[in-house]
């Protein structure tokens, strides 16, 4: 998979929804590390999905 075109993230002073720095525990925006081994993790996760999962998935109508 190619993750080289991931979006840039902007940090703006006075932003009412300030985005935490990269060292804050538990997340916040981090620049994508394209080319890191992580990229294979998502592909592995996708390949693990059972192709018939949606066929089996049944719900009742909600609102």
């Amino acid at each position, binding site marked *: 998979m190619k993750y080289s075109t991931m979006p840039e993230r902007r940090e703006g002073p006075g932003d009412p929804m300030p985005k*935490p720095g990269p060292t804050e525990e538990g997340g916040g925006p981090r*620049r994508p590390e394209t080319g890191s081994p992580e990229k294979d993790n998502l592909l592995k996760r996708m390949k693990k999905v059972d192709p018939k*999962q949606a066929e089996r998935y049944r719900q009742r109508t909600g609102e």
Partner: protein
Amino acid sequence: MRLFGLETEYGITREDLPEVDPVVESMELVRAHLTASFERRWDYAGEDPHEDARGFRVSGLAQDKEEDEFATRDTHRPFSFHDMKSDLVLPNGARFYNDHTHPEYSTPECRTLKDLVAQDRAGERIVQRAADRRNTSLGGKHVQLYKNNTDFHGHSYGCHDNYLVSRAIPFPRLIAGLLPFLVSRQVLAGSGKVGIEAQESGFVPGRFQLSQRADFMETELSVDTMHNRPILNTRDEPHADPKKFRRLHLIIGDANMCEYATALKIGTTRVVLELIERRAAPSLELEQPVAAVKQLSRDIDLKAVVRQKNGSSLSGLEIQEQYYRAAELTLAGLDEETDWVLREWGETLTLLAQDRRRLIGRLDWVTKLWLLETFMQEERIGWNDPWLASLDLEYHNVHPERGLYLGLEAEGKAWRMTAEADIQRALASGPADTRGGVRGLCVRRFPDQVKSVQWERIQFGGGLLPRTLHMDDLFEPSEVKRCLAAFEAAADPMDALNTWNGREDSQS
């Protein structure tokens, strides 16, 4: 008055069973949240979905034939309506319950987008935590939850956004101002879907579309929510002083995984309501709004145009641009959050037209499309491959080790509006500037004395007579803070009510 909230019905399944009973599973899931036995606290007296904002009352709500048959069987179940609902009021002021066949998390009322996004994410954690506990008791990871809106077999469930609006705005003005905006809002807030469905009519694979809900929109206006679904729901259930306020209850929206999409969906809608209140919304009138919802959803190139009654045609982006320009002209500089919405709305529309790949991690439909297209190239499969619907479903799984969106987010590839600390705060308490915060505080401080709860009131027992905190007009942040202070300082809720009501007496 600025106040909004989100209700999300989650899809639920058991992977160890050939057939799942969603009523029982949803009930068991909600109860798995509890560490003690269930006690009924929710007060249903204020709930009446039969009142129509157009000035009449309906005798009943419509549901499709299949659901009619299910409902008949449900009446013979060995538990009561209240046991089935298992309504919980949480320490953050949220409501968590079984909305008949789906676990539903309703955020507490929020005044800021940041609080709303954090509360929405807290909801994901709460339902998943309940699933973890349920799975522990079942002895395997059997229960899975999906924050989406379809089962790919013609059954949809909702993510409703709610806004407190002034009753002084005539309802026809709200309708006229909102319809074109809601028809086109999916270009920002659609969660994306593989294939095409219709109510009770199954699923046609192939073709990616912008929205999960578009296929299920059947009329412009209706009080119904399960059948004949409307672009604009006319339910008149204000959960506030009905002389002053109405609650705009929108059922057209998709459940979003991207925090940015949630913020933009609610932020732009709130801005458009502000435009309508100031009589500054653009004058647009679509010829066939229901057909337009589907037409725009099924064109991922965003080139499709829909006709107006005056004969001209507009694309979804052009409709959004007209609203954006009116908002920029009228509301720029109003406050920090409005400016944030305007800036991000404008930039998103530009990027959708010019370079939408830069919106990966921000908008769900763009993110999902990118994931699926990349996977299709990798696996050399086409849009008709059933694997894609399964991947679409798994994008919305809220299990951190399975969900595709959550996997993307864990890799730092999603635009975050919250930090983990924000979500932890939202799990612990409601917003400090809304009545949701008061509700949460009462649940935390006086769990044994809270007798019943509704959105607009809390009844306390423990004295000679039950007493009630009325919150149907508690919206000014300064008043909310005074109310919170009274309930934080008091030794018991009766003292708090005396302080709070005494303050009102001294003001009158």
